[in-house]
């Protein structure tokens, strides 16, 4: 039966759906860009797909912003907390796409990547992060607080690992590690943004982007 009198929640759900599409696109960009930088394929083969997806993310973000203004205007102050959260989330989702572009830039500019076990370690981090992006999608739909806390712990652990790897790379003298350092930094940032998205499930609006249980020095 059609809903003749939809309330504010139905439109908000649709906006959340659009945000999830942004997140899905971000994951696609991340997977595509990292596969080229780590497997050493021709960056030109993914350029069009990557930039088309990025444009779609940007357009969805802009469209969501317009819809948020309309939603806030029509439904008034009661809608503001949800809209402010969504505004922050879309920014995080958009940044994931941006970092995927930066990763693509590493491949395009021919950044040196390690081989052997070191490459395997980086690929393992990439795989974990890619799975986290998929998990984040499902978690946001389910709004599962327990799973969200586990997710945040995983994100923090991954960020710490990236930081630690970068520190170790500063000691390396026998090869060019600039590309590797940047890639790890980008992994950390992607992990941070997807973690920010999941904080919206467990923390109040003013604590958004701050991980519960993590020391202030690490926030």
């Amino acid at each position, binding site marked *: 039966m059609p809903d003749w009198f*939809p309330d504010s929640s139905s439109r908000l759900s649709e906006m959340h759906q659009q945000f999830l599409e942004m997140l899905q696109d971000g994951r696609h960009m991340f997977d595509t860009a990292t596969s080229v930088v780590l497997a050493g394929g021709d960056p030109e083969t993914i350029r069009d797909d990557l930039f088309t997806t990025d444009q779609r993310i940007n357009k969805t973000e802009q469209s969501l912003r317009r819809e948020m*203004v*309309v939603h806030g205007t029509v439904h008034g102050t009661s809608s503001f907390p949800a809209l402010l959260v969504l505004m922050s989330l879309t920014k995080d989702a958009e940044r994931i796409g941006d970092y995927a572009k930066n990763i693509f830039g590493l491949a395009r500019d021919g950044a040196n990547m390690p081989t052997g076990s070191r490459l395997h370690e980086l690929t393992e981090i990439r795989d974990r992060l890619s799975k986290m992006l998929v998990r984040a999608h499902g978690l946001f739909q389910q709004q599962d607080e327990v799973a969200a806390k586990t997710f945040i712990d995983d994100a923090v652990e991954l960020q710490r690992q990236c930081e630690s790897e970068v520190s170790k790379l500063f000691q390396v003298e026998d090869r060019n590690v600039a590309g590797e350092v940047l890639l790890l930094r980008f992994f950390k940032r992607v992990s941070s943004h997807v973690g920010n998205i999941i904080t919206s499930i467990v923390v109040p609006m003013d604590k958004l982007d701050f991980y519960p249980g993590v020391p202030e020095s690490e926030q």
Partner: protein
Amino acid sequence: MTRPRFETVFRLLLVFALLYAFLVAINLMGSSIKAMGKDTAGGMFDGISNPFAALAVGVLATVLVQSSSTTTATIVGLVGQSGPNALPLATAVPMIMGANIGTTITNTIVSIGHVRQGQEFRRAFAAATVHDFFNLSCVAIMLPIELATGALQKSSVWLTGILSGSSSGAEFESPIKAAVKAAVKAIVNGVESFGLSGQITAVITLIIGIGLTFVCLAYITKNMRVLISGTVERALNNALEKSAAIGVVVGILITIAVQSSSITTSLLVPMCAAGVLSLSNAFPIMIGANIGTTVTGLLASMATETTAGLSIALVHVFFNVIGATLFFTVPALRRFPIRAAEGLAAKAQQNVLWVVAYVFGVFILIPMLGYLILQSVK
């Protein structure tokens, strides 16, 4: 949070009940003036026989109650009563035009909320005043023509004749009116049960009628706004970058649903301020709101004693539909309100005194002085 289904049903029933009460209020107003007798009420509208004074009264009354729906419904009620005390149609026409001007003050006030935000205020103020300039221009063009030819009156009386099967302004009966009359009789009996009679009863029931009209419209708007907020949001999202025709339709439908053009036009101001809706896309929605608001008068005419109520309601429809057609078909006219609003907004951004001078001058000082001067030279 999802709205429970019972709340939706309750609000819908409430709206129907309020609509009925609104019709009762309109009929009560008319019957009260009729009951006042010729001596008391006969001179009531003599003071506004000058069309420009009537225009000023329309502006001031609407500014005062912040609702053109209330003003037009009251005018329809006063025109549509039977007997010698009815507000003459010729006097009511400029009053209806004045109500159109007066109603635009609401979104202008809404735009002032953005006054500290430079460009944002400029866009908000332009969005608010484009409606003002459109309505002022319509009156500037159509009032002189109406005074010279009486075209609006004649055509509405002609159409009333066709719709009601009588062009004489005679009384006509409908089942709705019978149901309304029963309630009116009950209210009058209720007032008389306090031992009151004659003109005192008439004055009290007139006050009840005016108050009830205002309250009913306010609560119809409030409930409908809650009920259709999701639909309004969808419609506005669709109208953001669509054609002018869609904008007009969206404006008409939202305004009919919420029974308030001010609500529709005020929603557009923050959207324009944020830059998500352009002035040229907001303008058709506002014109649609002007047309949509005429439904209130048509509803009110269902409760009036004579077909003259329908005639003045149709004048309101014709005035707004012709105005919209004129401004959409003549490109120069269409550009004028937008350019004027942008020009004024630029001045207002530079100096806030422009805002004060504009709002006070157009909506209060000029109508008031105009009314007083015209009264003194009568």
